[in-house]
């Protein structure tokens, strides 16, 4: 242990969970080491959140030019997607942000070790460094933040086919594919599908379940899917993949459709996006005696594992949404607890965002969840088409939905699809955090013309007194 009563902390993994935990612990006076085997910023900055949003930003500009340009008086002669430049720009942004993280670690005097850590005993680590040398390490506290990796389903023929790629592959293609089959209608698959569809790739989505984006309120999904269809994407639900065969085009995805008939879809690339799994296979959790569920580490709300002094956060833990801000929030909680503060991870203000066109975001309970939990609630809705700013931004596509307690009107959930939804959701999250009611949203002046006016109108609608729509 370091001198002067300082706590020593080792963080395994430098993603948004790990690097945030490291900085927070350093702020609180700990001597911190981050062990990272590949890249600072983890999945999020290198092959996750940020890269996808870069592609989507390019995609949005293409879409806006094509669908709005003429109408709003901005005329161009042909839009060309310079796909290698899309990827180069994405790489530049990633690099800027990951060097930023490196700078932050340095500024906070966090030590960085390039290497792969694994447990050799309780609270005992062995780190294999880049040059092959090994070092045994321990500390007053260890935070496991090794994140997740793409899951590969056991579909016959998939692994062998080089045209079957995962999200990481889809973020570093060298040329734009003409056709793509996306296996899985979750957020990662659909965000990438939206980007490629805008660039001109013909997209076919196949999904085993009977609906997509299961984390979203059904009303939101409906609007999002309608938009994607308008963009030219094809959807096949209840259509589980049976196998992948080779094809002169690239790959052939063979499915069984609703009626039990075999159907198949050929494409240059097949994007496999069926989910992510905790990245703990190489950690030897057994040696570390860390309880886990199929590799997902079990933690309490202080982010403690069963082993005293060993914490786990982010995508590698069991039972929480795999999101960057979740990982970061857990990271702060772990470090605060290690450094003598009292902190609990609380999920109730945690939003989920989907960066499709239009954006969607959700926080708190859905109607479905209220029903399941037997909570008496009321709903307020407001369409984006009745909001001036949304009309200007995207033609008014979208909806806000507020769920509030039946008796006191406390905000239980907020669900938005429409322009800027991923930023609008912060108001809902803050309302939940502050146990605010519909009254407080109503009493807050929402400026004109902004998309946020829809939030107040939805709150008014829940009380049957919206101004700009029928109640």
């Amino acid at each position, binding site marked *: 242990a370091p001198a002067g009563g300082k706590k020593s902390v080792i963080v395994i993994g430098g993603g948004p969970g790990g690097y945030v935990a490291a900085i927070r612990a350093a702020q609180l006076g700990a001597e911190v080491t981050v062990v990272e085997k590949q890249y600072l910023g983890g999945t999020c900055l290198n092959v996750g959140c940020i890269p996808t949003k870069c592609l989507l930003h390019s995609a949005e500009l293409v879409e806006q030019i094509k669908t709005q340009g003429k109408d709003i008086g901005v005329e161009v002669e042909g839009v060309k997607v310079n796909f290698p430049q899309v990827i180069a720009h994405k790489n530049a942004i990633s690099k800027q942000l990951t060097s930023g993280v490196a700078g932050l670690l340095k500024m906070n005097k966090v030590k960085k070790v390039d290497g792969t850590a694994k447990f050799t005993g309780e609270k005992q680590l062995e780190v294999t460094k880049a040059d092959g040398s090994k070092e045994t390490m321990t500390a007053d506290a260890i935070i496991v933040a090794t994140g997740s990796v793409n899951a590969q389903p056991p579909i016959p023929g998939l692994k062998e086919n080089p045209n079957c790629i995962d999200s990481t592959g889809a973020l570093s293609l060298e040329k734009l594919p003409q056709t793509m089959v996306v296996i899985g209608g979750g957020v990662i698959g659909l965000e990438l599908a939206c980007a490629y569809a805008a660039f001109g790739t013909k997209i076919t989505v196949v999904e085993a379940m009977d609906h997509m984006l299961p984390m979203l309120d059904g009303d939101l999904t409906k609007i999002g899917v309608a938009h994607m269809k308008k963009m030219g994407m094809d959807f096949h639900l209840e259509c589980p993949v049976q196998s992948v065969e080779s094809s002169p085009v690239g790959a052939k995805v063979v499915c069984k459709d609703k009626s039990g008939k075999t159907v198949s879809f050929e494409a240059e690339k097949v994007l496999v996006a069926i989910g992510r799994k905790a990245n703990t296979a190489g950690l030897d959790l057994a040696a570390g005696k860390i309880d886990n569920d199929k590799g997902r580490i079990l933690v309490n709300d202080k982010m403690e594992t069963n082993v005293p002094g060993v914490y786990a956060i982010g995508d590698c833990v069991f039972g929480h949404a795999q999101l960057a801000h979740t990982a970061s929030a857990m990271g702060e909680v772990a470090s605060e607890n290690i450094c003598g503060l009292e902190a609990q991870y609380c999920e109730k203000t945690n939003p989920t965002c989907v960066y499709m066109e239009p954006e969607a975001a959700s926080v708190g309970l859905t109607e479905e969840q209220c029903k399941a939990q037997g909570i008496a609630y009321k709903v307020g809705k407001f369409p984006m088409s009745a909001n001036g700013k949304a009309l200007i931004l995207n033609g008014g596509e979208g909806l806000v939905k507020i769920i509030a307690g039946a008796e*006191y*009107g406390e905000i239980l959930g907020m669900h938005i699809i429409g322009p800027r939804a991923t930023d609008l959701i912060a108001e809902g999250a803050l309302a939940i955090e*502050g*146990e605010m*009611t519909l*009254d*407080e949203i*109503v*009493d807050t002046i929402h400026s004109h013309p902004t998309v946020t006016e829809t939030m107040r109108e939805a709150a008014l609608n829940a009380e049957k007194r919206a101004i700009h729509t029928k109640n």
Partner: protein
Amino acid sequence: VAAGGARIRISPLARKTAAKLGVDVSGIVGSGPSGRIRQQDVLAAANAPKAAAPVAA
């Protein structure tokens, strides 16, 4: 949560102010939306004559 188990609706600023001034908020009627206690209500209670103040638990 108040003694009777009923929820006390109070703003974060009011809660912090009450803690600092040692004001018991359980007897305060809030002036905010749905009876939410605001800082001004806590300050008023703190300045109220002692006899009128709710008996401390």
